[in-house]
């Protein structure tokens, strides 16, 4: 038997055991759908792991194939089902800039409100997902209900929901076991390459899953305040660009982090584009986060990144 165990890798406790490679996802209750996590398990501990997206976009426009600007926007928005407003806005901005249109403050404002609305909805969706992962049924129900309300809500209805959102945050602060579950899990110190969005902002604090939870809850409140101060949301619609040509670049702070789009427009047709999203960078952090953690902690760490497999560009 010495021959058998001699070359086995030793885990943290110094005992050479059989390791097994277990897939989590692409359809797994505790992870976003479409994300495939392959973990090498040593008992209940994770020795290594990596995440891949099975639904992500490919960053190459088909050669020589031009897409109508409107169609491009629709396609990009529907390719990112978890943040369609953000990407619609991103595409609109990039195309408008390529066509040389000036910013229009009224439109910008309505668009920004729509973006903030989506941010709230997206964070609530993340909360529901986290609730499912942690077996916290109440959180799943409550966050999912609020998310659906907010996605349908007008600006005025949103303001009516404000107390409910505040109550949700307060409730989470009071929930026993939650802090011990999240504190110190999935630490990403500030200065880690490739961070953006709430993950980066939480890194200035403690950089763990607990900090990320509070960062997102804070962002919900901040977004609400912004909406309260600004006005009604307006879904981004492409302004008339005629048959303009040129190159345009735009950056939008989506709920999951910064997304950047640069494209070349020729006679109102998108000739080629280049998209860069936060999730494409975050997914690379998974391997480091899960290594050497217990399975439950590793999954919490992955969950706290709020990866959207659709926004992973390969």
């Amino acid at each position: 038997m010495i021959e058998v165990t001699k070359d086995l890798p030793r885990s943290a406790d110094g005992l050479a055991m059989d390791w097994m490679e277990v897939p989590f996802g692409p359809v797994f209750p505790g992870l976003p759908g479409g994300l495939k996590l392959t973990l090498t398990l040593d008992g209940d501990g994770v020795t290594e792991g990596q995440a891949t997206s099975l639904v992500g976009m490919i960053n190459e426009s088909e050669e020589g194939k031009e897409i109508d600007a409107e169609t491009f926007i629709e396609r990009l928005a529907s390719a990112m089902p978890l943040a369609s407003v953000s990407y619609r806005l991103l595409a609109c901005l990039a195309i408008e800039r390529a066509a040389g249109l000036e910013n229009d403050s009224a439109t910008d404002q309505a668009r920004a409100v729509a973006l903030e609305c989506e941010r709230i909805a997206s964070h609530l969706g993340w909360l529901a997902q986290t609730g499912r992962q942690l077996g916290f049924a109440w959180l799943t129900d409550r966050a999912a209900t609020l998310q659906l309300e907010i996605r349908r809500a007008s600006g005025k209805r949103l303001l009516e929901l404000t107390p409910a959102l505040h109550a949700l945050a307060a409730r989470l602060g009071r929930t026993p076991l939650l802090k011990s579950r999240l504190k110190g899990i999935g630490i990403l110190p500030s200065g880690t390459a490739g961070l953006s969005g709430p993950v980066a902002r939480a890194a200035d604090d403690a950089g763990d899953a607990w900090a990320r939870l509070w960062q997102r809850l804070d962002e919900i409140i901040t977004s609400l305040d912004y909406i309260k101060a600004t006005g009604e949301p307006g879904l981004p619609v492409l302004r008339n660009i005629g048959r303009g040509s040129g190159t345009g670049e735009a950056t939008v702070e989506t709920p999951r982090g910064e997304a950047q789009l640069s494209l070349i427009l020729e006679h109102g047709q998108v000739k080629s584009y280049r998209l860069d999203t936060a999730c494409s960078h975050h997914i690379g952090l998974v391997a480091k986060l899960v290594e050497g953690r217990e399975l439950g902690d590793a999954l919490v760490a992955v969950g706290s990144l709020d990866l959207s497999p659709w926004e992973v560009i390969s």
Partner: protein
Amino acid sequence: MTLILILALVTGAILFGVGVYGALSQTNLVMIMMGVELILAGALVNLVAFWRFLHPESYSGQMFALVVMTVMAVEMAVGFGVAIARFRARGSVEMEEAGDLKG
């Protein structure tokens, strides 16, 4: 009633025999411990049968059985402690590969 006593004693004897076979024939430390557990189980059966059919008035018999159970637990604890230490050091708890323990 003597019949039941003898039934119990024979069962204890066979368990003891099986345990001896196991403890001697197995190469793995944990399996050897299983053999020892069976030997102790055989002893337990005898103790309880003796208490019940010969001296039910003296509870030292039951006390003895309790002590044997303690011994079983202690054997497990120490055995596993040694097994872990051995496995950590040598990567094996096989008897065939434990020649270095010979004095």
